[in-house]
């Protein structure tokens, strides 16, 4: 069972303006992915319409969203040219896939009470975990507006408690998942309860999570993103700064303990690059 395989698109369903749910069938099977792992997905270059076309060039990383009887699913947001091209790939189109890659979310121990915190597309990496932890986890899920909230019924089914929020208040509480999470932690904390946070979402949210984690002394696992070339640890392109130096998101991550990450705006430019003019 190779981690590099050809897959056929079984379904590529548009969920709303920005999100698609893609189901692919690995020809010859693939390893069982664990929650938090990801695939590098690109067009099959041995067949038209993509034969020997090199733009877009690199594969794209996508988290395992869920496993269905049909195949593996990824939930993806249409962002740039790669995901735009992917959106237009119809049923039966072949993809070349590497994976599952990276480290899964560490499973909670018996005493832990898992808190799943998803911001926007962050749900793509956490749905599979929510399913695993069905009945055990409190789920905090937020988006900009209500119609960006997806799979609410499934989440309701999995969650011990479901806390929804939207920036515009169209559904759930008006505000961010962080507000809701903080309320919850303030209300429901006690010396005996041991929470464990799993979070995925925008960088700013993850940064805030790591502060919450530090302030409240709650362990938090976050899935971080960086541009990737190889996905297998070879190119050193996906470096993220941690307390122990640069780590590869694709290999040491994508899941990290929030406290390991050294946050920066990612633009610590070497002085030589300060501009001479202006």
């Amino acid at each position, binding site marked *: 069972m*190779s*981690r*590099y395989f050809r897959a056929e698109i079984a379904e590529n369903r548009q969920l709303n303006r920005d999100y698609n749910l893609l189901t692919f069938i690995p020809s010859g099977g693939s390893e069982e992915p664990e929650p938090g792992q990801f695939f590098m997905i*690109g067009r099959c*270059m041995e067949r038209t319409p993509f034969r*020997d076309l*090199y*733009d*877009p*060039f*690199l*594969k794209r990383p996508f988290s395992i969203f869920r496993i269905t009887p049909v195949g593996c699913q990824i939930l993806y947001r249409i962002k740039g040219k790669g995901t735009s091209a992917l959106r237009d790939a119809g049923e039966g189109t072949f993809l*070349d896939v*590497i994976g599952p890659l990276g480290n899964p979310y560490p499973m909670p121990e018996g005493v832990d009470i898992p808190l799943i915190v998803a911001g926007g597309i962050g749900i793509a990496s956490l749905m599979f975990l929510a399913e695993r932890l069905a009945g055990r986890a409190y789920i905090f899920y937020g988006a900009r507006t209500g119609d960006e909230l997806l799979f609410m019924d499934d989440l309701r089914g999995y969650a011990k408690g479901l806390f929804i929020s939207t920036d515009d208040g169209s559904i759930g509480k008006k505000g961010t998942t962080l507000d809701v999470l903080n309320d919850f932690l303030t209300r429901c904390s006690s010396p005996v309860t041991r929470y464990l946070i799993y979070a995925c979402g925008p960088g700013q949210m993850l940064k805030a999570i790591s502060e919450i984690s530090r302030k409240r002394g709650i362990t938090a696992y976050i899935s971080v993103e*960086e*541009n*990737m*070339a*190889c*996905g*297998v*640890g*070879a*190119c*050193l*392109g*996906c*470096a*993220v*700064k941690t307390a122990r*130096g*640069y780590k590869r998101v694709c290999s040491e991550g994508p899941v990290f303990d929030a406290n390991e990450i050294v946050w*920066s705006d*990612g*633009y*610590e*430019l*070497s002085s*030589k*690059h300060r501009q001479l003019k202006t």
Partner: protein
Amino acid sequence: MNLAVSIGSLKLKNPVMTASGTFGYGEEYSEFVDLNRLGAIVVKGLSLQRREGNPPPRIVETPSGMLNSVGLQNIGIEGFIKEKLPFLRRFNTPVIVNFFGDTIDEYVEAARSLSSVEGIHGLEMNISCPNKEAGWITFGTDPKATCDVVSAVRRVTGITLIVKLSPNVTDIALMARVAEEAGADAVSLINTIAGMAIDIKTRRPRLANVTGGLSGPAIKPVALRMVWEAYRAVRIPIIGMGGIMNSEDAIEFMLAGATGVAVGSANFVNPTATVDIINGIERFMAEHNIADIKELIGGIVCRSQS
């Protein structure tokens, strides 16, 4: 059907090797590729001390290519010999260590410490990485500096020495000649071409390091031209690279004068690119009844037919 070629004192079972920095230390791709099938394994560039490399973002895709500013992050020569080399010794494929330094002494130091290690079969000097300080780049872009550093390294090492040339020069033929005269057993080209990209919304460079190295199919025409120019300037073998994605590309480089070819960014897009290319070359030779791959080297037909 004979695919074997020689680079210096190295006998390669086929001309297909990995491009430094795109195949990690070999281990990363061993799950996808039978390393025994490769002509040679060229590992990520090493320095005496380990390096942290540049801040992220380090990678940005460009049309038919990519920019990287990894900045020569590596675990250091000692770390490599301890942690990575034992694994590579298990394969009967020559291991070529790509290395660099900030000073001639560092180059010499490094070469010395790599030359008599069991399991290291050849050295590739990177004098051409565009990701370093201006003072450094001159090694690969100034003939005098190139001559000095290559000569110095040549003096301390007896194993096969490959000099990797920078494409960011006016006259690649001259640089190849300088490397040859300084004692290189072979030259490899091209390294990445310096480039950059800007995010117009944030007005910030897409790479934290601002500039990076361009690789992939986008640079293939430039790489091929430089290999052809170098081929007509030197007698030592040339290892060609730059945008090689499939066996057709590899053959194109050999026709232009390359004795060996290195597969770089293609590994990212297709982890089995190296073996796919070896298989493709074999198919091509069979179809065109080419008994010895050496027939392809420099085989471009440039004479007027009229």
